Structures are given as C-alpha cells and as structure tokens.
C-alpha cells in the first residue's frame, strides 16, 4: 500500500464518523418533519402549495451556497450545526413531495371504502392511505439519502469534517488518490444506506422478520462503526499525537502551559493554508492544547467563525481583509496596510493580529516564459498593446474583487477574456497554453517549477497580501496562547513557504511532513 493511501486510511475513521453523523441526523430529522408535514399537506390544500413551494425553493439554491449561507444565518456558527441545518432542509423536498403525491395518488375509491367500512380519518390514514403510499414515501427517503450523502461532502468549507475533506484537500494539492478515495467512500456509503433502506422496505412489505433483522443489524453496524471515533475518539487522538508531544517536551523543556485547553484552528482550502494550519496545530499541541482542525473553510466563513469565536486561530492575508472585510479598494504600501488592518480588526471585531508571518502571498499575473517573450510582455502594462485576444484565468473569487476592477482599469485590459477556474488547474492551464495569463499566488512553488514569469505591476494596482496570524477575541486575551504562537511571527520567509508548498503540490509529500519541515527550519534558521 502506498504511503498516500495509508495516510488517507488513517483519516478515514474520523471523517467517516463526521460524515455519518451529519447524514444520519439530518436524514432522521428531515424525515421526521417531512412525513407529518406531507400528510398534513395532502389533507389541506392551503398548506400544500406553500409547503411544496418552500421545499422546491430550497432545492433551487445551489447546495454549496445553501451550506455557506447557513453560517451568517446562524450568527457565524460553524461546523456541525450549520451543515446539519442545511442538509436537513435539503433532505426534505423528496420526502415531502413523495408523501404528498403518494397520498393524493391513491384511488379515491380506496378512501371511500375506508370511510364506508367505518374508519375514522386517522384509521383511514394508518390502515389504508399510508400503507398504500409507502412505496412512494420510501422512494423519497432513498432519494433524500443519496442526495444527503453526496451533499455532506460539501460541508467541509463550513467546518464540518466529512468525506469532502478528502476531495477538497485532494483538489487543492493535486492529490488525486485523495479525491478518488473520498468519492469512492462517499459512493459506497450512499449505496450501502440505499440498499439497507430497500431491504427494510421489502422486509416490511413481505412481513419477513429475517430481512428486517438483517437490514436493521446492517444499519446498526454501519452506525456503530461510523460513530465509534466520536465515542472513543479522544483516546485515539491522544495516541496519534503522543509522538509529537515527545518533541514538544524536548523543545519547551516539558512545560505545557495550554494543558487541558481546547483550541480550534481554521484554514481555507489551499495548500499553504493546510501547511500553516498544521504548523499552528503542532505548536498548540506541544503546549498541551487539544486541537480541533477545521480545514477547507470558505474565506468569509472562516473570518466570521474567527470573529464569533467558533475558530480560535487562523492565518489570513492583509489584502484579503482590506478588500473583502473592510471593503476598501485603494492600494496601500505593505507596512501601512498591515498597521491599518490590524487596528481595524482589533477595533471593529476584537480580533487580535498577532503579527506578520514574514512572507507575502499576493496575487500576481503570471505567464508562460516562452509565451511572454514571444509577445514581448514584461509588465502588466504591456498586455494592453497585444492585439490577439488574451484569456486570463483565476479563481472565480478574484474576478469579483475590487483589485481586478482596478487592474483592468489601470492597465486598460477590457478586451481580455476572463475564465474562472479552480486554482489547482490554473498553473497547468497556462503552462499548456490553454490560457495566456493566470493570477498566480506568489508563494506557489509551481511558478518556478512550471517556468512561469510574474509580470511587473508598475502602478501597484494589486494590493499587498501579507500573511498575518489572527486570534479570536477570546484566544487573543489568553497570554498562554499568545506566547505559544508568538515565535511564528516573522519566522517564515517567502522562500520557505514556497518550498513547503511545492513539496506538497508537486512532490506529493504529506501536509504534516511539510509542516514538520517548516518547524525544523524555524527552530534552526541557520540550516
């Protein structure tokens, strides 16, 4: 077995548990609400329209957006609760619709017969209508199950651990084994749940206790297996981190100022963030804290979570805070911006900016070296005089930011076509000539590895993106936490970060190893 696959398998119990817990609770609550609501809607025309419309409307919201929207709607809460609420809402439509249809489609002769033999409304429902509608309702439950298992993979960006962690992580680090692994496990889970529900249905229909026992036992087994890490997880995690503790004893002389403290480290969904989050986690664990890692969170979701204290520590970038949080668009010199951002975060949100990490990860326009030479382009200003239609690729977030508007206006790039693309694929796309320009991240190792050139920005239209270490209001008030993380300030150069990123992105090194390499470099700067 490859080391990569082994690492994925090691993460499986925790992620599968998170996924199962989300799926099963969301389905259970969704079904518990939808079936009675469906019954009521089948009986009341006045309720039917609004109920079905509301459920359909929820369905039209893209699932990713529905999940992300739950965070601000629930006051910045992240993790299980927003994912659970979104998945519950999402699971309701198929069950609700099929319950209503199943009951309304019953031959009126059947309900008349039920009344004719002397049944009350409730008896008609339980003896006749529900049994006759059951195949429809169960079909709805099965649809909901498959949907929810699939959609739960999208709960990673709101900070709920799921099998989606494999997919998001894998896409960002070009680790296709992880992506396929996540997809396959999610698909197997959907198939298994679907088959067990179908088995339960046949057991009920044929009144076969044997089938019922097999299906019920299978479900119980799956749940028990999936939930085990939640019950016994504390112990498992302690074992996994014990070797790191030994290192910590060496480093800090055995002092564990954060013992018994539980801290959450949040990160966005790209390699650098994974590595830095792991680095933060390592330091906090050395100090004795129990660390909860929430990778792959959406940028604004992460900030909301930090502000509200759902996340204690994160790494952000001055330019990002400047534009997306503060809503500013004018450029500013690097140090001045850092000072303004830090002051703003403290005053407006109580967030403590512990300091700069020591490197910038800015957006920079980059081109293939050969292509740039052929077009005689060296700076962004040169692009305006290129006649042939140029295409620029970036993550979709960038084209919505004010700095793109500014770059376009400053350099007269209105004729340039834009193409939204996951950042994982940009570098390959520009190397292979599929697009002409990309918005590279300056710490991405692939700039050098793929022989790309970064275009000069003479008008300084792109703001600085200094990496900064942020603490939530509560965590910022704890001297032990501050002291534990302060050594990271100004400890990481752009070169170090680039190398660590490249290790993960191109050499397939595990994130934990890259983080360990950084630790090594930080503690022994001379080497």
């Amino acid at each position, binding site marked *: 077995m490859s080391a990569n696959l082994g690492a994925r398998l090691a993460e499986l119990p925790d992620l599968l548990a998170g996924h199962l817990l989300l799926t099963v609770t969301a389905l259970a609550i969704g079904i518990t609400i939808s079936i009675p609501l469906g019954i009521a809607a089948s009986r009341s025309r006045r309720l039917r329209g609004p109920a079905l419309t509301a459920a359909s409307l929820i369905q039209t919201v893209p699932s990713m957006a529905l999940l992300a929207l739950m965070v601000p709607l629930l006051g910045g809460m992240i993790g299980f609760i927003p994912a659970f609420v979104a998945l519950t809402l999402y699971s309701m439509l198929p069950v609700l619709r099929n319950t209503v249809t199943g009951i309304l489609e019953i031959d009126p*002769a*059947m309900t*008349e*017969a*039920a*009344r*004719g*033999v*002397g*049944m*009350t409304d409730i*008896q008609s429902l339980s*003896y*006749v209508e529900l*049994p*006759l509608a059951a195949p429809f309702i169960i079909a709805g439950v099965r649809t909901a199950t498959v949907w929810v298992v699939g959609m739960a993979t999208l709960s990673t960006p709101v900070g709920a651990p799921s099998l989606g962690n494999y997919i998001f992580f894998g896409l960002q680090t070009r680790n296709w084994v992880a992506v396929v692994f996540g997809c396959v496990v999610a698909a197997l889970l959907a198939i298994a749940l679907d088959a067990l529900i179908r088995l339960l249905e046949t057991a009920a229909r044929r009144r076969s206790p044997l089938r019922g026992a097999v299906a019920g036992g299978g479900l119980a087994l799956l749940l028990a297996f999936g939930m085990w890490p939640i019950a016994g997880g504390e112990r498992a995690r302690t074992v996994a981190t014990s070797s790191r503790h030994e290192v910590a004893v060496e480093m800090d002389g055995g002092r564990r100022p954060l013992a018994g403290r539980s801290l959450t480290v949040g990160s966005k969904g790209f390699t650098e963030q994974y590595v830095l989050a792991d680095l933060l986690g390592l330091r906090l664990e050395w100090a004795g804290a129990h660390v909860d890692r929430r990778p792959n969170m959406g940028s604004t979701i992460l900030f909301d979570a930090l502000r509200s204290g759902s996340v204690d520590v994160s790494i952000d970038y001055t330019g990002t805070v400047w534009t997306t949080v503060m809503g500013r668009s004018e450029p500013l010199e690097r140090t001045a911006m850092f000072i303004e951002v830090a002051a703003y975060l403290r005053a407006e949100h109580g967030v403590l900016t512990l300091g700069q990490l020591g490197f910038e990860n800015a957006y920079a326009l980059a081109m293939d070296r050969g292509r740039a030479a052929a077009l005689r382009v060296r700076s962004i200003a040169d692009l305006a005089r290129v006649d042939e239609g140029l295409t620029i690729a970036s993550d979709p977030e960038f084209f919505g930011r004010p700095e793109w508007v500014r770059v376009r206006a400053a350099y007269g790039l209105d004729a340039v076509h834009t193409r939204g693309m996951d950042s994982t694929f940009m570098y390959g796309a520009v190397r292979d000539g599929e697009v002409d320009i990309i918005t590279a991240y300056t710490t991405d190792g692939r700039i050098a590895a793929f022989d790309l050139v970064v275009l000069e920005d003479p008008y300084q239209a792109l703001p600085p993106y200094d990496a900064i270490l942020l603490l939530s209001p509560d965590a910022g008030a704890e001297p032990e936490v501050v002291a534990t993380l302060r050594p990271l300030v100004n400890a990481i150069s752009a070169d170090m970060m680039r190398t660590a990123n490249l290790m993960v992105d191109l050499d397939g090194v595990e994130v934990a190893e890259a983080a360990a390499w950084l630790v090594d470099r930080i503690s022994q700067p001379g080497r």
Partner: protein
Amino acid sequence: MTLMLDRVCKSYDGGVTFAVDDVSIAAESGELMVLLGESGSGKTTTLKTINRLIEPTSGRVLIDGVDAAGVEPVTLRRSIGYVFQDIGLFPHMTVADNVGITPRLLGWDADRRQRRVRELLALVHLDPETYASRTPPELSGGERQRVGFARALAAGPRLLLLDEPFGALDPVTRDGLRDDFRAIQRQLGLTAVMVTHDMTEALLLGDRIVVMRQGRVLRDAPPSEILRDPGDPYVDRLMTSPRRNAERLRIMASDASSSEAAP
C-alpha cells in the same frame, strides 16, 4: 330493520340545482329495494346519504325509526354493510384482513374475528383454507366481489347497501353471484338497498323498484306492477330492452323446438 327516507334533498350549489330532489322512499324489514336509473340520476347519491358518506342538504333518513343524523357517522357506517361499485378491497391486506376490518374497528378480539372470517368466507362459497391468506390482486373478479360481500356482512349488519355490485363482472359470473347474493340476503333476513342501471337485474332481484331520473323518484313499485304497467313513458322506455330481449329469446326457443319437432 326498516328504512325510510323522508323528503331527502342534496344540492352541491347551495340550492340552485339538486342531485337528489325530494326523495321519499321506504323499505320494509327484509325487503330488497332497487334504486334504478341512468348515470346522473341521483341513485348513488341517494344511497350514500343512508350511511352518511354524503350528508343530505335537507330531509331525514330513518333507520328503524331513528334519525341517522343523530348517530355518529363512524358508528353508523360500522352498523351498515356496504358493497362498493368497484369492490373497494384493500389491495395491501389479505382476504382475511379485508373481511375482518369492521370487526377490528369495533374492537373484536383476534379469535372472534378469525372465526367470523371463516364463517363468512364459507357463506359466500370461498374455501377459507384457500382464500384467507391471499391478497385481492390474486383473485378473479367474481372472487373479489364475494370477498366484498363477506366484508360488508362481517359485523352482522341488519341493513346492507350495494352500489352496482355486479357491474364489473362477466355475465356468467354475474348470474351465479346474483343468485347466491339473493339467497344469502333472504336467509339472513337483511334489509337491502341496491343501486343499478340494469332494468333486467332490477326486475329479477328487487322486491321493490324505485326508478329515478334527474334526482327525482319517477316510479316506486314492485316488479310485477312495473311489468304490468310502467306508468311513465321514461320507465316504459327503460323496459324496452328487456322486453325485446325476452321476446327474441321466446321466438328463438320456439323456433328451435319446432325445428326439432319437424321430421
């Protein structure tokens, strides 16, 4: 058990038009009364006012002199047997569960129910061993309607309502079932009201025929009287087809016997 409808009306549009218009009819104990008419004549609506599947707009339904409006609908329906037009067996229940449904609603214990089901299946000429555990989709049309009769009789009603009970059956099955039904009804002394659009069926089965048209009673008399004197051009028209068929059959029979007599 006697049944009397006293000036029963049913309107669905607040009194502008009437589906049942001032119907007053009565059945003696043990009598089989046939409500005869075309579709839309109000015969089925009239039938359904008796067990309050449809509430009359005005008028009274008296069962053994008691006003049905004063009886809880569910209680009323459990005490009256009902055979549905399209049989109305519950497809997800076994024959035994279908037949035993009203006793179950009445809270009979399982033993008593089971005995009753076997008794009734035997009464409608279905072998309990063979049929009790089957489900309706596994039965023929005739068998299903026999189960339908058994279900209607399960709780021992004294009054039986039948909505076109033989409509969906082929002629041979229909004749056999009709005879069996008539014999059971007589044997148990049930008062029965049957809806049909078939004059021949009405003449063959009914103790009394009520001809309805556009919600009104056109003629209310025993078959012998109607045969002698239809009393109304519309009733006369309804008689045309059975008469013509009877005449044709008589001629054919005599032709057959005369050709047999010839050398």
